[in-house]
């Protein structure tokens, strides 16, 4: 990864305190790293160097190990992502049913390309492998909610709802 990929984003110290609280019970238990990062992911928008350093310190592992782990898994990110991560299935079942069209629609609506995050950090568009809901392809997942049988019109209204209101 090139250096410019690491943005100037800094994790606020209040979040770092919470990260430490999540990681602290797992000192010297490196096998719990997945559990720690999935919990931490819920409260931080990115695994920045400081987040990784806190996890490393609390779990007694190296910062590099945390970093290496995070960069391996597609759903973990070292770059800040949006409040809503919109994942578009890239696999063949959605591909043969018009995924490209859904992508075009979302990109034009949000004004960003796949892989990017809106400036207000509300949305991130990402490709993902098959979501396992091929009975309703083409499909997307927004955080942990799924939407299927999408058309250009229906995906527009789904995204618009997320633009207008906070969906929990």
């Amino acid at each position: 990864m090139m250096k410019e990929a690491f943005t100037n984003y800094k994790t606020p110290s209040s979040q770092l305190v919470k990260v430490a609280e999540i990681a602290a019970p797992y000192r010297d238990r490196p096998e719990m790293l997945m559990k720690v990062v999935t919990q931490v992911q819920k409260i931080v928008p990115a695994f920045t160097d400081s987040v990784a350093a806190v996890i490393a310190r609390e779990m007694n592992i190296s910062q590099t190990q945390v970093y290496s782990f995070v960069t391996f898994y597609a759903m973990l990110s070292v770059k800040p992502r949006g409040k809503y991560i919109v994942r578009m299935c890239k696999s063949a079942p959605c591909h043969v049913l018009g995924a490209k069209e859904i992508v075009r629609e979302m990109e034009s609506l949000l004004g960003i390309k796949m892989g990017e995050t809106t400036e207000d950090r509300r949305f991130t568009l990402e490709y993902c492998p098959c979501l396992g809901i091929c009975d309703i392809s083409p499909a997307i997942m927004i955080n942990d909610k799924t939407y299927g049988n999408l058309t250009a019109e229906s995906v527009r209204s789904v995204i618009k709802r997320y633009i207008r209101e906070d969906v929990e």
Partner: protein
Amino acid sequence: MIHITIDGERTSVPEGTTILEAAKLMNVHIPTLCHHEDQAIKAVCRICVVEVEGQIQLPTACNTPVSEGMVIKTASPKVIKARKNIMELILSRHTQDCLICSKNGTCELQSVASDLNMSRRNRYELEARNVEVDESSPSIVRDMTKCILCGRCVEVCTDVQGITVMDKENRGYHTLVVPPYGKSLVDTACVNCGQCVQVCPVGAISIHDNTDEVYSELEAGRKVVIQMAPSVRITLAESLGYDPGTVTTGKIVHALRKIGFYKVFDSDFSADLTIMEEGNELLQRLNGGETLPMITSCCPAWVKYCETYAPDHVSHLSTAKSPQQMFGSVIKTYFAEKEQLDPSEICSVSVMPCTAKKFECKRSEMNDSGYQDVDIVLTVQELAKMIRTAGIDFENISDSEFDQPFGLGSGAAQIFGATGGVMEAALRTVYEVVTNKTLDNLDFEDVRGFGGIREASVDLDGTVVKVAIAHGLKNAKIVLEQIKAGNCDYHFIEIMACPGGCIGGGGNAPKTWKKLEKRKEAIYREDKNLPIRKSHDNPYIKQIYEEFLGEPLGERSHKLLHTHYIDRSDLLR
């Protein structure tokens, strides 16, 4: 025993033998890249694939154990085709600048590619990994455009040194081995030990080369003096193709003169000086109720480790400088005075088995002479290249003597190069100083060897001193954890970052434990053959205290030969 057939020849080997090992027993050479005899089996490069009758796929020889009746073909057309295809993939991601690579001629990839006769044009577009070369570290250069992702460096940094400065980033085609978050090596907790350089099969991790600076100095006309570390005479010849453990002290001295050094000094002298200071510091700590255990501070990688991971415990480190740095300040003061030279006219160079020494000489506090005490550090590998560059016929060059008064060292100083050596050297002196008796047996066998952590007790006329030796930072960490927990009852601990001590240092030719064994034998043999084997018996040591330093731990000694440490825990953020 398991009965197998390799390339048509039947044999039997013990159960658990891998195909690679079995082939070796049959004098069949199977190429490998990720495999390293001292490391865990990886089976990732896949270059060692072989054909096994009845198997659809081609298993890798390095990890596949033989089984009864196995019929193996190690070089069938199918195998050769697969190996060439794999090599082609590797080469398509590898910068093709072999002629200007530090590993040119010693590169494992080059050698395997040559054996495989990779003469056809690569079918893929060359796309080396897109990462800038990292020259930020004074010790180590990382060039990931050459990395073949064998994983050896990650293993040594994690499993031997326990610090994991570098690890894999991303996955798939975009996998790299890097420090985290785009950091340059200099901004990490890297201790500069160079163990990664030792295991890198290609030129992806190499020694930061300072030979050009030496040539510049030689050309500029300053008085370029050089000191040579205890283990250099043991390991240098290996870098020129000799067998491990071939000692060539006189040849190296002669070669250094031919290259143009003004004076050639022996760091064995300053190792003796270190023992005088460190030994007396130990006695002072034992008697004065000061911080114990005292830990050696000769190893700059260990010192940086302690400063980074245990900044609250640096008071355990002896304040004595390393032999290199003691020599540095002595050369630009005492020697300059004697020679009636202005210190600014001296360029002080050292040749070391160590990459971390390059970092140590640049530490900002290492200027007690009023100048940077040591200007340039060369490793064994760099000096070997300079010898070749100069066209010196090393085989036939005659022996030459070191320059005095810094050309004499004791056997105690000589064994500094092996793990346990500093401890043994210190004990020889401390025993005689405390007891006023002459040691009957100078060989402290308990502190020798390659055990990760070794301990011993020495009776100093009723006072029992407990000592320990650790080498490899993972072992150092264990000792350090005991100190942190307050349950460490040693008085004196020797710690060396590199496995085997300095003879296993990152600046030498790549090592294996087998080679280290030979180097170790050589270093103790040297000790045994030296007329003086105790630091305090070195006449020039007596002389320098009389003429210049005063006494160990005295005012001038303290100023020139001792140092302090800083908190580097920021590097972990």
